[in-house]
């Protein structure tokens, strides 16, 4: 029987998810986990707080530093805000440090100026697209309940015109699981995407009443992922990377997956809101008991060493007892803490999906190895 293992032995470089405008957004996606929060009020991080954060973060950590710029819709902070960010980063850069900026946007506000800025400063741009027009416009709506598909496609076109190939995040809901083949084909053959990831909608605490019934089940996610694997194999493009398939594959061959929900390094991340509030992740914003501190009145060092954060890191490390006998323990780490049933120490809701898909892909890999051997 496997033992429970220590998962996050040290802090390493902490990775911030910075909500520069907090929940303020120009879209009203029906599944958004900020729907119960104020998305109408224009809230932008003050210059004073931004400078405090950048200075302290770059003082605390060395090596490769990451800044994940998030929202709401982060472009609503305006281009001068981001010009100030790169100015502060340049001013505080020390020997041995390298910076990677990542921004996640709905792409509806991207124009030539934004694209030029991202290209000039080497920002990684992630765009949220749920699939083809039918899938995307099912939930990703503007204030007037109109679909956002055309605006997003225009944004991607502008990015590409400037030599930026965005990563794509697809959100999977109950309704869209029926369109798995259409959406895969859209991404690969119409949009020409080489890399994308899938976020599954699972409202564990039923926070979003408007989306009751849209949380996907183990059966739906298992079927979806197996179909994606089959289509990925049939496409047979060595450069085609689907984040979930990559994560499962890494675990099967005994390597550490890249995603926080597989590799057990969840506590390396923290979320910073426009007003200075710090949480473990923006998926936990509704949980006040998990607030690590407030950068407007505390130092970043004090916040990251706060009892709440240290307890969170310990809770993340403590696996559910069912994990002890699971062969995929080190490849799964009990999944996302926001999707654990009954709290951080609970069992990952998609445990059955993980086990089934690990087994499915492992069999595919063994078939491949047999074929390789037979072809020698």
């Amino acid at each position, binding site marked *: 029987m496997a033992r429970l293992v220590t998962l996050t032995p040290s802090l390493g470089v902490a990775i911030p998810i910075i909500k520069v405008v907090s929940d303020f957004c120009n879209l009203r996606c029906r599944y958004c986990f900020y729907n119960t929060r104020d998305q109408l009020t224009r809230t932008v991080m003050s210059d004073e707080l931004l400078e405090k954060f950048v200075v302290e973060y770059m003082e605390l950590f060395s090596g490769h530093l990451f800044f994940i710029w998030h929202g709401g819709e982060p472009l609503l902070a305006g281009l001068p805000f981001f010009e100030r960010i790169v100015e502060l980063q340049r001013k505080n850069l020390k020997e041995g440090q390298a910076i990677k900026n990542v921004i996640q946007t709905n792409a509806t506000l991207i124009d030539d100026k934004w694209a030029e800025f991202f290209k000039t400063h080497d920002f990684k741009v992630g765009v949220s697209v749920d699939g083809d027009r039918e899938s995307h416009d099912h939930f990703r709506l503007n204030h007037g309940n109109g679909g956002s598909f055309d605006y997003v496609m225009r944004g991607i076109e502008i990015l590409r015109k400037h030599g930026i190939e965005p990563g794509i995040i697809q959100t999977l809901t109950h309704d869209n699981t029926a369109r798995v083949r*259409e959406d895969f084909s859209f991404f690969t*053959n119409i949009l020409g995407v080489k890399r994308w990831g899938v*976020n599954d909608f699972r409202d564990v605490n039923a926070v979003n009443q408007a989306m009751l019934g849209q949380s996907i089940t183990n059966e739906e996610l298992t079927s979806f992922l197996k179909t994606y694997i089959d289509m990925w194999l049939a496409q047979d*493009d060595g450069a085609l990377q689907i984040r979930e398939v990559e994560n499962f594959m890494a675990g099967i061959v005994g390597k550490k997956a890249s995603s926080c*929900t597989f590799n057990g390094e969840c506590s390396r991340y923290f979320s910073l809101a426009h007003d200075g509030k710090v949480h473990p992740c923006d998926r936990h914003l509704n949980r006040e008991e998990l607030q690590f501190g407030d950068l407007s009145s505390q130092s970043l060092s004090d916040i990251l060493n706060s009892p709440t954060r240290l307890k969170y890191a310990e809770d993340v490390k403590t696996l559910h007892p069912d994990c002890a006998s699971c062969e995929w323990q080190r490849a799964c780490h009990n999944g996302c803490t926001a999707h654990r049933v009954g709290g951080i120490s609970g069992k990952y809701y998609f445990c059955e999906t993980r086990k089934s898909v690990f087994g499915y892909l492992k069999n595919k890999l063994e078939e491949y190895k047999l074929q390789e051997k037979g072809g020698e």
Partner: protein
Amino acid sequence: MLNESVRDAGKTVIVTAVHDTHCPVGSRAIAGALARTKYSPSNHSDELQSIRSPAAWQQWGDWDNGHADS
């Protein structure tokens, strides 16, 4: 050799791939995925996920790593 028959499915196009026996289905996809695990640490070590190569550093962030899922 890869032959593709393309079927117009209204708003999307579904591609059905047919492979010959000299090139096992999925072999290139799997080989690509395996190659990309090269620089990842073992999941039996306590080493944190890190940027181990210029390629990995370039790639980092493609998937909005703060919201990894499934």
